[in-house]
């Protein structure tokens, strides 16, 4: 019997229909996953359940009763906890204060804070799951993984029946993601109903009881998990088969394009040069060295920055303004903007990269992560640079976009161009790079050729305290 039911739900924002006639039913104490590409309407659907946005038409049922939340408060009262992709934490307040908030009521009260009781309760949960968070630290000082645990802790203290996880692993390391999945299974044993939104199919497959697939705002499939293979899920999500591009044959002799000073690293023409390593082990330093060198040698480069939100996407600026920002010399003359040409070029770019919605006047920050990244990659490649610095090019990006980006990196590297691929996703580095190095505490190990090391060996070098005997290319 359905515990949570979406019946013919439609949600539109103005002209834009985000969810179209979606009906899903979810049983009690199951893990129900909702998958789909970015912009498919997954988060929108969950925001309806969480009372954050109102339904346009259709009905929600909770435990056979009509459920019409008018605000997040209503969801809260119905014991629905929503763990947002973007954390709902006050960064300038401590972890404990963020938790304390959940214990307060809307009645006006001048009661002093019951810090010690809450701390005890919180610590009980922390020890139960073997988590360590310093609750007296400001949230801004906690790592992303810790912030997420804090968010979960906050939800659990209220003993919810239904927990919605919106892309919980988007910002976590593989180990953290694995732990989270174990944790979600544990919650299920405690009779909680869990809705998991993600586009990481491996983890979905491993924990879910049933899966609903959304595409362009419509439900395309809702089935028990064992009836769907990962390949089928991917196909349903993007509406066609995923073609994995294969690595390219490379000419045996390749010229060097530039070398990084004080190291034995040189970048060759026609190659993808991978940089593996846990984040924060010297990636930024290596990138800035490369940037310096390229500026010195006057090499034209494209730069997919490591932190899209901070460095590539600016609040309130639309697509063509972002285009102008990067390629200003192409569109400016005597201080005037060639607006028609600029808009035309941006429109073509949006079309060829399938950025959705194809509206070049919309602020880039309002696009989904995958579409933002597609636009950024397209923009960086637009004027055919010689080198492309690609830092985490597929982070927070869905399968379809990932495929597109990978393909274009391979394609780009064919024509005597070089790609520097910095990624914390080991699979990505292994799959795309012709040669790669491994960073560990600002030391560069390698370079290794494709196939020289397997995943386990690389993992060891990435994490080891001491890598004696492994070839060292230099230190940053």
């Amino acid at each position, binding site marked *: 019997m359905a515990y949570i039911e979406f019946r013919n739900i439609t949600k539109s924002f103005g002209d834009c229909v985000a969810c179209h006639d979606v009906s899903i039913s979810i049983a009690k104490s199951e893990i129900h996953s909702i998958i789909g590409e970015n912009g498919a309407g997954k988060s929108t659907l969950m925001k309806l359940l969480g009372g954050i946005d109102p339904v346009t038409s259709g009905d929600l049922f909770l435990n056979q009763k009509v459920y019409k939340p008018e605000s*997040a408060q209503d969801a809260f009262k119905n014991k629905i906890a929503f763990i947002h992709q973007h954390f*709902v934490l006050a960064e*300038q307040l401590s972890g404990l*204060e963020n938790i304390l*908030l959940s*214990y307060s009521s809307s009645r006006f*009260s001048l009661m*002093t804070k019951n810090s010690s009781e809450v701390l005890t309760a919180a610590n009980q949960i922390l020890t139960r799951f073997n988590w360590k968070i310093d609750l007296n630290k400001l949230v801004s000082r906690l790592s992303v993984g810790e912030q997420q645990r804090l968010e979960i802790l906050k939800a659990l203290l209220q003993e919810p029946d239904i927990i919605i996880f919106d892309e919980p692993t988007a910002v976590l390391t593989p180990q953290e993601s694995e732990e989270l999945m174990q944790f979600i299974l544990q919650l299920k044993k405690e009779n909680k109903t869990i809705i998991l939104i993600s586009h990481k199919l491996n983890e979905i497959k491993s924990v879910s009881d049933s899966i609903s697939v959304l595409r362009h705002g419509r439900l395309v499939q809702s089935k028990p998990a064992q009836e769907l293979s990962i390949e089928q899920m991917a196909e349903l999500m993007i509406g066609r088969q995923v073609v994995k591009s294969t690595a390219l044959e490379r000419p045996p002799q390749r010229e060097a394009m530039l070398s990084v000073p004080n190291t034995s690293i040189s970048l060759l023409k026609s190659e993808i040069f991978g940089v593996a390593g846990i984040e924060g082990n010297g990636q930024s330093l290596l990138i800035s060295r490369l940037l310096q060198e390229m500026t010195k040698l006057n090499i034209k480069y494209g730069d997919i920055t490591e932190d899209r939100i901070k460095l590539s996407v600016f609040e309130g600026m639309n697509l063509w303004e972002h285009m102008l920002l990067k390629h200003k010399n192409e569109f400016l003359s005597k201080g005037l903007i060639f607006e028609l040409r600029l808009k035309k070029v941006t429109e073509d770019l949006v079309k060829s990269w399938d950025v959705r919605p194809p509206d070049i006047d919309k602020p880039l920050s309002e696009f989904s992560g995958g579409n933002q990244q597609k636009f950024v990659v397209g923009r960086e490649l637009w004027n055919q640079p010689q080198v492309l610095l690609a830092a985490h090019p597929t982070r927070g990006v869905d399968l379809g976009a990932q495929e597109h980006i990978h393909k274009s990196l391979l394609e780009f590297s064919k024509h005597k161009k070089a790609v520097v691929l910095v990624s914390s996703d080991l699979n990505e580095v292994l799959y795309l790079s012709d040669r790669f190095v491994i960073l560990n505490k600002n030391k560069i190990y390698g370079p290794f050729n494709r196939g020289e090391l397997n995943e386990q060996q690389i993992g060891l070098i990435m994490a080891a305290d001491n890598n004696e005997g492994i070839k060292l290319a230099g230190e940053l």
Partner: protein
Amino acid sequence: MDSALVLIFLSALRVSLPLLFAATGGYFSEKSGVAQIALEAYLLIGAFSAATFTYYSKSLLVGYLAAAVLTALFSQIFSLLILKFKGNSIVIGTGLNLLAMGIIPIISKTIFNSTGSTPSIELAQPAPYFPYVVLVITLAVSYWLSEKTIWGLQMKFAGEKKLALQSVGISPAVRQWQSLTFSALVTGLGGAVLSTSLSSNYSPLMSSGRGFIALAALIFAGWNLARALLVCLFFGLCEALQIQMQSNEAISTYVAAEFIQMIPYVATLIALLILRSKYPPAELK
């Protein structure tokens, strides 16, 4: 210690009194996520109410209470326009400042038949320590409210992360309204000090930018109340020095009074430049 120095310090504390109240008031507004540039208006309303009520009752207590209550009432216009009708707080704050300047002469004309200063206050008993007692109580209550109570936490969440507050069933607007009202109440007390303790009547525009100085102190102190209060005291010290210098013949013969009067403002500007502003409440607008 030299008695002249002691005198300067005492007068520094005295002239910084209205600033200390205004900064505390501003803190409660800004922390709850509403930019507050109407402190100037609150000081004026507080000053006028206190002068009027003290004049008739001959009691400072009545004057202070009237200042607090009437300023809090006056601030309801601000809260209504911002929280209910979602106005821009800078525009409305400016409007309120202008309104205060305009409305006081009208009321003053009706009561005292004069649009200028109110008549001098005569107290039944002089009470030179009264403003200090009020200050200590205000600061203690403010600290307790903001750091110790659940209300204070919720108020800060309204300024830092509204969504978090909403998701536990609390309306940010309600907390902001309460905080804005308290903010006006405290600033109104500052106005009362201005007209009843630093002088003996209300004179037009007597706040002379103190509301803005308090706000600047708060912003540059990184929305940290204790640091903001220190900046206010520093301003007071410069003001006290300035008064001393003006009465010193050796200096005032050679330096124009206008330049000496500039000292506190210039010094505060420099002090504020040294303090770097950071961590504004995330939802402040």
